[in-house]
């Protein structure tokens, strides 16, 4: 089992972090989320094209980078920490599903960034459903690719990531395998947990930094145990969340038998840890954290939406209980 980043993974992290820091800092996230499309297609193009991140786990023979889920987790942690708007997670889900199904038709376009794809996790709410060229619809073990059709944008709590209601009828079958679909669902759980880890880390970093410079009653708030001890507990959550994400990503790559329980564990633990940390970070900021202008609420809302994206925590806990044969 490997729970520590390799030198190559650390380089990947640095590259993605540096790219997002320049191409999509939070000030730009705010502009993009208010734009008509809700994201900057140019950033998405560079992320998929220049950096090749949409096809990270896609085999090389289908245009991908042939990297592992451990690498994907590193990338999603960074896009999460940056609150990157747009369909990157949706496309990642699609690429995962198509890869597991052995697709050869759609993957090249998805990988190249020319096809924006998503997966309909739920009939009434499709992640980036209005922006996607292709919506993958799961019917038991069969997966259809639906293009066009009616798309109704929904209002979302999280302004940085949109959803839509979409007509999911018709389309061509791109593959059929219950095992592939089941494994893909577990891989979605791991991928989402990686994004949540990034959100968690960013919100903790933000309040730690603020606690060092914000003064009340003559000294920095981080010097008060009331704040310090909460931050220490948040750090403990981060350490555990990171350990679980690394484990789940390792299982995705190296230990298929351990993946289902690892994926359920990841969603059961990291989803709550992420929201609780985002909430505590916001609250500890005091009044400024409640303003629209401050970024704390964007993380708080992303954390809450992510927590229920693949179903609320109890769903993952129940699955974990089943897998443990309790």
């Amino acid at each position, binding site marked *: 089992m490997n729970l520590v980043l390799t030198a190559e993974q650390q380089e990947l992290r640095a590259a993605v972090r540096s790219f997002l820091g320049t191409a999509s800092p939070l000030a730009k996230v705010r502009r993009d989320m208010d734009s008509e499309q809700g994201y900057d297609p140019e950033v998405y193009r560079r992320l998929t094209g220049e950096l090749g991140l949409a096809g990270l786990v896609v085999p090389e023979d289908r245009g991908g980078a042939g990297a592992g889920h451990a690498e994907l987790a590193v990338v999603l942690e960074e896009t999460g920490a940056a609150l990157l708007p747009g369909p990157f997670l949706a496309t990642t889900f699609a690429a995962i599903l198509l890869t597991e199904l052995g697709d050869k038709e759609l993957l090249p376009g998805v990988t190249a960034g020319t096809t924006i794809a998503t997966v309909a996790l739920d009939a009434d709410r499709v992640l980036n459903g209005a922006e996607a060229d292709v919506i993958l619809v799961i019917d038991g073990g069969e997966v259809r690719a639906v293009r066009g059709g009616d798309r109704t944008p929904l209002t979302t709590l999280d302004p940085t990531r949109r959803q839509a209601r979409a007509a999911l009828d018709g389309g061509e079958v791109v593959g059929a395998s219950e095992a592939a679909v089941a494994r893909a669902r577990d891989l979605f759980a791991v991928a989402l947990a990686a994004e949540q880890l990034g959100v968690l880390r960013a919100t903790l970093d933000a309040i730690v930094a603020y606690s060092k410079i914000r003064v009340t*009653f003559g*000294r920095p708030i981080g010097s008060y145990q009331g704040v310090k001890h909460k931050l220490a507990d948040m750090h403990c959550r981060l350490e555990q969340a990171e350990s679980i994400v690394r484990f789940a990503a390792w299982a995705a790559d190296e230990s298929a038998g351990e993946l289902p329980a690892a994926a359920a564990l990841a969603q059961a633990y990291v989803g709550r840890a992420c929201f609780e940390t985002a909430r505590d970070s916001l*609250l500890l900021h005091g009044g400024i954290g409640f303003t*629209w202008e401050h970024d704390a609420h964007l993380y708080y809302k992303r954390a809450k939406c992510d927590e229920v994206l693949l*179903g609320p925590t*109890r769903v993952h806990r129940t699955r974990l209980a089943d897998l443990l044969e309790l």
Partner: protein
Amino acid sequence: MEQVEYRRRARTWLEENAGARAEADPGTDGLAAARAFMAALHDAGYSGITWPKQWGGQGLTQAEERAFAAEARDFTLPTYVFSIGLGMCGPTLVDLGTDAQRARYIRPLLRGEEIWCQLFSEPGAGSDVAALQTRAVPADGGWIVNGQKVWTSVAQHADFGLLLTRTDVDVPKHQGLTMFIVDMRAPGVTIRPLTDMTGHARFNEIFFDDVQIPAESLVGEVNGGWKCAVTTLLHERLSISAEVGMSGQKDNPATFAALRKAVDTSDPLVRDQLVELHIRSRALALFNQRLAQETKAGIFPGARGSAAKLLLAELTNFSADLAVSLVGPEAVAYDDDSGGGGLAGAIALAPAMSLGGGTNEIMRNIIGDRVLGLPPEPRLDKTVPFKDLKVGTQS
């Protein structure tokens, strides 16, 4: 006995006159209706029940005020825009104003003719109000004010504000503050709505740019502002604690009553989470009822009210969080048209309860210090001249 009669009459009056809703921003028509309601309330003898007759009040006792409040709880009154004036600014002027100030301001305030706001908080001075940096310097027999205030409710409607400023930076922070009445329409006063995380502008930021204040607008003594502010904050606490746990939860979609209808209780885990919400809600509701019964029996809750405030803040966050988890993805991605978004609104608003009226940390300090009598923390900021003190955000 007589109070029974007082309550009966109050109820009759309320039944005939109440009805309009309280709104944070009532609009022009709503504002006119609210003003008319206040004038009628004053004519009927229910505005300023305990305030001195001499200045426009009714000169009655806490008993009548409580009796009226108890009856009023069943109604929704359009008094929100007047609440700062009635709850904080007015009582401060009654306690500490000059007779000229009382004569000038109290009656119009009680009749809804003039609206007041309170100007204490600053970006660098929230919990720590006495760290404020807005400066007032003497000039031409009056004062010139520069600085910024924040979290000001109803400022967009306000005629006057109760303003706390720094007038001496060479003394420790509590000793160099001065309070004024400020005309909110004076040149140099800029009012800017402050959008909060729900996307609404419930508060304002106020900028003071060489604003002139005449000498007669001084409240209390020069450099005696902290004493005045403590008076105002005491009235604020009383008016908030009178509200805590009493406000209607009718529209809140994150209550036990609302959620039991909205979710699938055949799932044992859902059922158990609903029970948890019921337990916490009942525990706090019963505590609030006990405090109310004690108050009625003459036992003043004092700082124990901070426990109710802290618990309400925690319950509000807990229930909104739980509600979204119970309902699932549809709570956070929804059709605006089909009436969705209630829970999204609840989860976005939930932190407000922990931040307004003192953070959870401040509440815990108050409970520890004043209820449990624990030793205070050593304070470094009480003896240093203000100009040498770190305040606000510094890197």
